[in-house]
């Protein structure tokens, strides 16, 4: 009950602060929030877009949250996302098996490669004491430029574009992709406008994979000795070492799993939504948003899931103020930032509320 109250107050004050920012830049907050609310839930396709947008955020949030449980701050989620996306696009283009083999194979390869990439940072920390914040930030850029290099490589580069070749259709995890544009599908959808509207965006199986990952990570942390050891290292590496846990090994393993989760986010994004990878001028921010998701979700698996949906919805519907009310994107970013900021620091409410509750009990 108390926890719920905290979260509620945090969201409320975040929204109020966002309203202040909107007001200061000459935009009516009530109108803006109405546009956002309608823009988030008034049509099935909006909900579908929010699900699509939330999928990578849930996974990168889970990745950051998981590493955090082992006492590691995984800033490298962005780079691991890129490695996962690149691997999925690469193998999705060069391999072409039956979908039942192709999809799991490409997913596994993407997760494997990105987990090695994440593990690299853990390995360097374990062996040489390189702080993971430093190494993962640098690995983000290496991933970005490696991806750009690969996209431009002959044989993989799609001529006359800034993107790679599209993945083979057998790699796609978009739901009912072929049926949607077939004659039979169009006829059936014509009679069912709501479902048709929901299926219009590239709604894909990634969300099921994300929820599955959340459950698996929760079980791993809660119900296995492996998870217990990881958490022990996170709480106190010295105590864990004294208790006979191989701390270095656990750090590497934790970063590998975190990297795999971020890589899965990249892979589902490529296989479900973009179908290729493009030259990146800068980081797209899926991984960095994952840090915010993890913070909002108090570094817990299910927390990351809810926070991922929340941030996805906020980012999707927030953009709509731009054309509706002519709000500059900077104002929208500041508003979203303010909301996240308040949600991520529940501490400021914790003490006053505890005091009030104590006074209440005395009466």
């Amino acid at each position, binding site marked *: 009950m108390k926890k719920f109250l905290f979260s509620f107050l945090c969201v409320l004050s975040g929204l109020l602060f966002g309203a202040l920012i909107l007001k200061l830049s000459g935009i009516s907050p009530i109108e803006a929030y109405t546009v956002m609310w309608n*823009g988030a839930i008034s049509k099935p*396709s909006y909900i579908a*877009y929010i699900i699509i947008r939330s999928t990578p955020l849930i996974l990168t949030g889970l990745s950051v949250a998981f590493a955090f449980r082992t006492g590691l701050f995984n800033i490298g989620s962005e780079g691991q996302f890129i490695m996962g996306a690149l691997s999925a696009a690469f193998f999705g283009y060069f391999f072409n098996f039956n979908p039942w083999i192709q999809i799991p194979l490409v997913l596994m390869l993407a997760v494997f490669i990105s987990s090695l990439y994440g593990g690299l940072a853990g390995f360097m920390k374990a062996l040489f004491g390189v702080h993971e914040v430093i190494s993962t930030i640098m690995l983000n850029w290496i991933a970005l430029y490696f991806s750009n290099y690969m996209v431009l490589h002959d044989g993989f580069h799609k001529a006359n574009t800034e993107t790679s070749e599209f993945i083979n259709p057998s790699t796609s995890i978009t739901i009912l992709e072929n049926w949607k544009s077939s004659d039979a599908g169009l006829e059936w959808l014509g009679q069912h406008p709501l479902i048709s509207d929901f299926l219009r965006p*590239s709604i894909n199986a990634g969300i099921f994979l994300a929820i599955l990952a959340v459950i698996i990570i929760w079980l791993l942390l809660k119900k296995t000795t492996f998870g217990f050891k990881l958490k022990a290292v996170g709480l106190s590496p010295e105590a864990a070492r004294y208790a006979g846990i191989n701390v270095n090994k656990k750090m590497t393993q934790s970063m590998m799993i975190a990297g795999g989760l971020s890589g899965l986010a990249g892979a589902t994004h490529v296989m479900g*939504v973009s179908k290729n990878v493009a*030259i990146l*001028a800068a980081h797209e921010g899926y991984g960095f948003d994952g840090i915010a998701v993890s913070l909002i979700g108090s570094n817990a698996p299910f927390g990351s899931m809810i926070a991922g949906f929340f941030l996805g919805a906020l980012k999707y519907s927030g953009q709509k103020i731009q*054309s509706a009310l002519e709000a500059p994107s900077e104002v929208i970013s500041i508003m979203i930032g303010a909301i996240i900021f308040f949600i991520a620091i529940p501490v400021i409410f914790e003490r006053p509320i505890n005091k009030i509750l104590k006074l209440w009990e005395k009466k």
Partner: protein
Amino acid sequence: MKTQCVISCLVMIISSFSLAADKPIRVGMVTDVGGVNDQSFNQSAWEGLQKLKKELGIKASYQESKQDADYQSNLETLYDAGNDLIWGIGFKMADAILKAAKQNPKQKYAIVDYSFGDKTPPNVVGVMFKAEEGAFLAGFIAAKMSKTNTIGFIGGMSVPIIHSFQYGYKAGAKYANKNIVVLEQFSESFTDAAKGKAIANQMISKNADVVFHAAGAVGDGVIEAAKEKNKMAVGVDRDQNYLAPKNVITSSMKRVDNAIFQVVADLQKGSFKGGSTQNFGLKDGAVDIAPTTSKMIPASLIKEVEALKIKIADGKIKSPSTEAGYTTYLKTLK
């Protein structure tokens, strides 16, 4: 409080009625990941819409894309907002526009810098620029200004849009001076300024004294190199003189704003040319050289350039935009 609400509701309803009576055209645009303040074609496009807002009383709005994955959802946001025409700015949005146009056959779309050719859906207009005409003038000026008889061209990527700059520039240079040497290189990037600087320095060391770039932000490095070595540079897309006021002698400008203005003005007159690609050139004011050029080059040369402009606009000189076109063009020179 309650009465206030009722009154404000009434006011809103009445005002929406009166709006419906005027029915101004609503036009929305989706930027690519550059955003609306990119100092390049996205910004120019938005300036065009704002000009339309002032002069023709249309309603204009924009949606910025943060990621490539945003194109589809942003196009739908503008579709749901009830726009008469939706612009996609930049060739990166081609796939998203095509998909949206097929899903909403009654909605009008337009795209900048891309042609669907014969496959243009009936509700889409493609807008292309005869960049080769602006580049022709730039090449002409570069060759006339060069003292070493050597000039350079740096392209972002070997793609058709950049080829039109490349061959237009070369054709203009050869028109001015048949024996001019044109060094060419692609930077394989539109963002890496350091690479642009390195390539430009290399060209300068090979005796080039004017360098032209068609490579986005790579060009910032090209211009910087020219500034440091005190050589001349030619800008692209917008007037880039402000980057190096003593060195950027001219810029081959693409006036996205003027092209957008014309398409929307046509729409208002009820003559939207759906299903086709419109090519805008010097004649339409959609490509030109920068206004600062007159400060940078001698007045006699300006006169020659003005005469050349008329010849191009009248079609007496056809600037080539492909390698094949360039080869045949060279034969006509002899």
